[in-house]
């Protein structure tokens, strides 16, 4: 029983990990906190829905197009609302992304209404038995997709030109600029990748919890995961996400089932009070 619950925890957690990853990517490059990360997943999932449901495309093609559009949207959003405030305090940018999240949610409401829609998964809706546990293939597929995406990103950051430039920018913006790195371009690429990751998260999430405009609230779980793992740490985002997923699923076994509603908030609160830098985070010092 417990094994079963832990597995479904990991499946949920892989989605939280993707949201946390998107947050960490943006934070590392720009030091901005993106409150709209969850709404980005929601919008991407709806775009995919439009492609296969209204335009009748096949699911893989719809997903491919969705991811391309997601990346473009990331560039557009960065240009439109983040870059004009690039010299403003981070406080202001946080409020801007907060505004962005509610704009996306209400626009999605206008376009697609606030109903729930069933969403097909690219993975078969079947189960296999491993020992005493039944494992559903959608959950397994979600975990696998997350792992593959992580590996791709790892290679991207480690070995490509853009990736190296982005690491340089996150290390020290001014030094990177002086070394000839195009800092603005790095910001664009960061938002594109982050929106793309959000898109993957949205497409994986929608089959599990139904597609609706309320999906964006997953950003809270993303924050909880990122804070638990250590804010700004990429491995931390993954571990925090998976761990939060497990806590999320195990907690109702031992506590009243309503606990599920407040697990992420409890995690945020407890981690911030006891150990603000999370599991893998590093202490940050501010220069004056």
């Amino acid at each position, binding site marked *: 029983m417990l094994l079963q619950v832990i597995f479904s925890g990991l499946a949920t957690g892989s989605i939280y990990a993707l949201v946390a990853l998107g947050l960490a990517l943006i934070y590392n490059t720009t030091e901005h*906190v993106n409150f709209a990360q969850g709404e980005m997943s929601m919008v991407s999932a709806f775009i995919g829905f439009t492609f296969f449901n209204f335009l009748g495309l096949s699911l893989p093609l719809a997903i491919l197009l969705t991811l391309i559009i997601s990346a473009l949207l990331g560039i557009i959003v960065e240009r439109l*609302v983040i870059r*004009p*405030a690039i010299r*403003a305090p*981070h*406080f*202001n*940018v*946080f*409020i*801007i992304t*907060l*505004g*962005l*999240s*509610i*704009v*996306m*949610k*209400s*626009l999605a*409401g*206008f376009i697609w209404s606030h109903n729930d829609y069933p969403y097909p998964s690219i993975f078969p809706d079947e189960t296999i038995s491993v020992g005493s546990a039944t494992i559903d293939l959608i959950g397994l597929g979600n975990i696998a997709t997350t792992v593959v995406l992580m590996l791709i990103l790892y290679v991207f950051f480690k070995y490509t030109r853009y990736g190296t430039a982005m690491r340089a920018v996150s290390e020290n913006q001014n030094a990177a600029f002086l070394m000839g790195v195009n800092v603005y371009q790095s910001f664009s690429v960061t938002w594109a990748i982050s929106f793309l990751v959000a898109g993957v998260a949205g497409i994986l999430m929608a089959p599990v919890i139904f597609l609706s405009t309320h999906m964006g609230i997953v950003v*809270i779980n993303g*924050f909880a995961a990122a*804070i638990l793992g250590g*804010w700004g740490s990429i491995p931390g985002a993954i571990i925090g996400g998976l761990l939060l997923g497990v806590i999320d699923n195990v907690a109702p076994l031992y506590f009243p089932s*309503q606990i599920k*509603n*407040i697990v*992420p*908030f*409890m995690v*945020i*609160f407890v981690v*911030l*009070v006891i150990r*603000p830098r999370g599991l893998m985070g590093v202490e940050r010092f*501010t220069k*004056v």
Partner: protein
Amino acid sequence: MDKKKVLGAIAGLIALYILPMFLGNYSIFLLSMLAVYALVSIGLNLLMGFTGQIAAGHAGFLALGAYFTAILSSRIEWMPCIVVLLLAGIFSGIIGFLLGIPILRLKGFYIAMATLAFGVVVSEIILQWSSLTNGDNGINVPVATIAGFAFDSDYKLFYLIVSVTIILTILATNLVNGYIGRAFIALRESEVAAQTIGIDLAKYKTIAFAISAFYTGVAGGLFAYLITYLSPDAFTIELSVDFIAMIVIGGMGSILGSIIGAVILTGMQQILAGLLDLQILIFGISLIVFMIFMPKGISGMIFDLKERFASSK
């Protein structure tokens, strides 16, 4: 303060107090709601606009004040409503102070997350602790009374709410112009610089939390008396975000801006009642546009125009 200003303020007050005689019940109710929002707005602005701490859970403090008022005044019926409101404010203020202590270790957006979590946990506790709060069914708020006089209509309540709001607004104005307010602003501009000139960071941050929570708690009490029925689902994250929008649009770091923000929030809720999506969309767009082009909000704009006018004379 010069004579003209004092006379203007007195004239404004008299106008405000005789206004209800010319208005219908609903307009009076709206004005009272506006006054409640203005209090929340001032409370939030003290913490966010003046001290620079993003607080995304003020619906939680509003809920604390509101439920405290409802529960206390139904248990101890003879207690004058002013005392109840004061206690509600103090109760919420103590919680704010306690919340401020762990938050001292946190910076920037972590504070936003912690306060956001706080707001949600408060409404969840209210929902689950049904022996005290009546949970999902909501709770009725007794009529506000003071020495046998009952504020049993919107018309009478208007005077209670507006008077409390005016007194607390004047106090807030004094506060921000005094030593404490200047300490808040110094902390907002640079925590390190403020500390080097001898401002006790821990002390003033927790004070900011406590005062902000006090204002919002009192506002919660007035809110309870005004709408007479409380349910936990009224105090959502969305409400906290509305409050943030209110001070961003009105003007951060300005008491006048807080009031302007409250006027705009009440007005929008009124004009766009039933068009919730449009209302949220406009709030979202204004958050973005104001933060990019006018980070000081409407009151900052008024101030700039005044300056320009004065210098061109």
